[in-house]
């Protein structure tokens, strides 16, 4: 049996079905991300695993133990909250030591364990401070340390970085991943940021309307989105119908029964690589946006709008504007479910 196993889990708030027949397995030491838009049920699923929400149907196993009816405090599961949830009346040391104090461990052991995790999160010089005296990033590190010190079997993180500015967020993403790998702890991370999910995860569970619509490694998820929702949520895909593709390439035909196709915007190229087989077509550039290392262009191809991401080579900017010939490798046209 897997380390965490969720079987046919459903949860409703009144008449509103929030989680619909969810099943998945997580192996020990994995970092899983629950990714999806607001209201898709990802935080509720996390809270179910934590024991903070009671579900109506299904089973939840942790290390082969059925914890469906176990109290949150008895699950040995840690949780990091979006707004940190640090105790304002306690110092950083007291906050981190809280869980160990409840276990009535000897004082010197508590001190040793607290200092161990304090070093992990680089807060040695802040242990006598109160939470309000720390920055947002430092507070989230404290929250992380507080959860880690009790050595939970699983650490749940509910959008822990969303309240932080971009620079601190990127830094903490790296820190969390590094910590997870070093400690080998199983983590479930909730986010609505697909880039964050890609950076952090071993596997990503994409959720929509209370269901897991696709679970895959970041690379597979990006290369093979299962349906239109995933394709539109992950990266910058062009979603085209068979008619649209026929307008681009009149010779295009596909025997599969799907009616939608996804094309990554960076897989469309400007100059046709010599000797390669694929679809060649002409388009008219309508506008472009410089995003930094890439330029996002919007092309019109026989009334079909195509988003194309090109490498930002400043010397070639003028030629991009004048170039009309585009190229797609047939392998980059991915058939998806509606």
């Amino acid at each position: 049996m897997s380390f965490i196993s969720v079987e046919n889990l459903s949860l409703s708030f009144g008449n509103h079905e929030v989680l619909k027949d969810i099943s998945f397995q997580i192996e020990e030491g994995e970092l899983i991300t629950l990714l999806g838009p607001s209201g898709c049920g990802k935080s509720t699923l996390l809270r179910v695993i934590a024991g903070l929400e009671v579900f109506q149907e299904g089973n939840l196993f942790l290390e082969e133990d059925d914890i469906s009816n176990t109290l949150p405090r008895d699950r040995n599961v840690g949780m990091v909250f979006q707004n940190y949830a640090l105790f304002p009346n306690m110092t950083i040391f007291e906050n981190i030591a809280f869980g160990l104090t409840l276990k009535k461990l000897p004082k010197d052991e508590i001190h040793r364990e607290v200092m161990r995790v304090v070093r992990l999160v680089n807060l040695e010089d802040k242990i006598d401070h109160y939470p309000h005296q720390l920055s947002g990033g430092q507070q989230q590190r404290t929250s992380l340390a507080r959860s880690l010190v009790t050595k939970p079997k699983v650490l749940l993180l509910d959008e822990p970085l969303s309240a932080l500015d971009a620079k601190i967020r990127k830094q903490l993403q790296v820190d969390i991943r590094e910590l997870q790998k070093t400690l080998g702890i199983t983590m479930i991370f909730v986010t609505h940021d697909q880039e964050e999910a890609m950076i952090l995860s071993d596997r990503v569970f994409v959720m929509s309307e209370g269901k897991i619509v696709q679970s895959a490694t970041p690379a597979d998820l990006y290369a093979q989105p299962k349906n239109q929702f995933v394709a539109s949520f992950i990266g910058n895909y062009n979603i085209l119908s068979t008619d649209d593709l026929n307008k681009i390439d009149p010779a295009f035909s596909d025997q599969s029964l799907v009616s939608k196709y996804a094309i990554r915007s960076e897989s469309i190229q400007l100059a046709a690589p010599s000797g390669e087989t694929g679809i060649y077509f002409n388009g008219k550039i309508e506008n472009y946006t410089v995003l930094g290392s890439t330029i996002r262009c919007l092309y019109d191809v026989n009334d079909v709008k195509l988003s194309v991401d090109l490498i930002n080579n400043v010397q070639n900017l003028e030629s991009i504007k004048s170039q009309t010939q585009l190229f797609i490798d047939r392998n980059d046209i991915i058939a998806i479910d509606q």
Partner: protein
Amino acid sequence: MKIKKRNISTYLILVIFGLYMIFPFISTGLYATSTNWSNTLLPNDFTFQWFIELFQDSNFISAVTRSITLTLITLAVVLVVMVPTVFIVYMYFPKVDNFMKGLVLMPYAIPAVILATGLLRMYSGSAIPKYAVLVGGLFVGSLPFMYQGVRNSLEGIHSRNLMQAAEMLGASKLQAFLKVIVPNIKLGLLITTLLIFSGFFGEFVLTNLLIGGRYETIRIYMMRRMNENGHLASAVMVAYFLLLIVISLVITRITSSKKGVSNSLFKRKKRKQEQVIPPLSLKQLEPAATSEVKSNNEKRRKL
């Protein structure tokens, strides 16, 4: 020039307001320290005679003691009953909370005389002592302040999140409430307590109608002495205000202790700028940190 004009008018308003507020107190003080003040702008003499007489009157000391006793007993009942009740309603019965917010405003709609009459009709023949009925009546009167005060404090500290965080760390609900919630709403509780304390201490109608003759509190004592001697009544009033000020200062002193939420709530906005700390080094994660890592940490701290 414009700025100067605005400053003068601002100060003028403040001075008028200050005089308006302090004038009755000064007048009462002057009247309490004189024997004759009738046809002149200021009193003809100055004396502490009324204060000496007041503090030598055992009835006054008894009245103060009774008021304090009644107030403390009622406050204890209110705190013990209401704090857990509001907490449970707020945390676990949000629909009841919406109903309660309206219900607790009812004492505003019922005049104290009506409440006292109702209580007398209800309990006059019963075995329940009138003192307990009075405590119950005062309890009801405190509901608007207590419910809203505790509720606002719980909302202010994001108590749901704090409870869940504590439970996830292994605390029972009772442990989480006592170790996390109560210390963090201490400031709000003390402010609400202060508000209710001054209200109970000066309560007259309920006390007078329910057990007035047999249990003379400070306000009933004041009422009786006012009919005997105006100067003495003023002295009682000044003593009453000073006593309230002393009690307020004591409570304020307690609430402004350095530790805890009292500071954090006010200083939260003064959050320090984000400090960019270099990413964690894997070497640091090893149990025996090398001297290189230690020196790097030192550099980081200096930065």
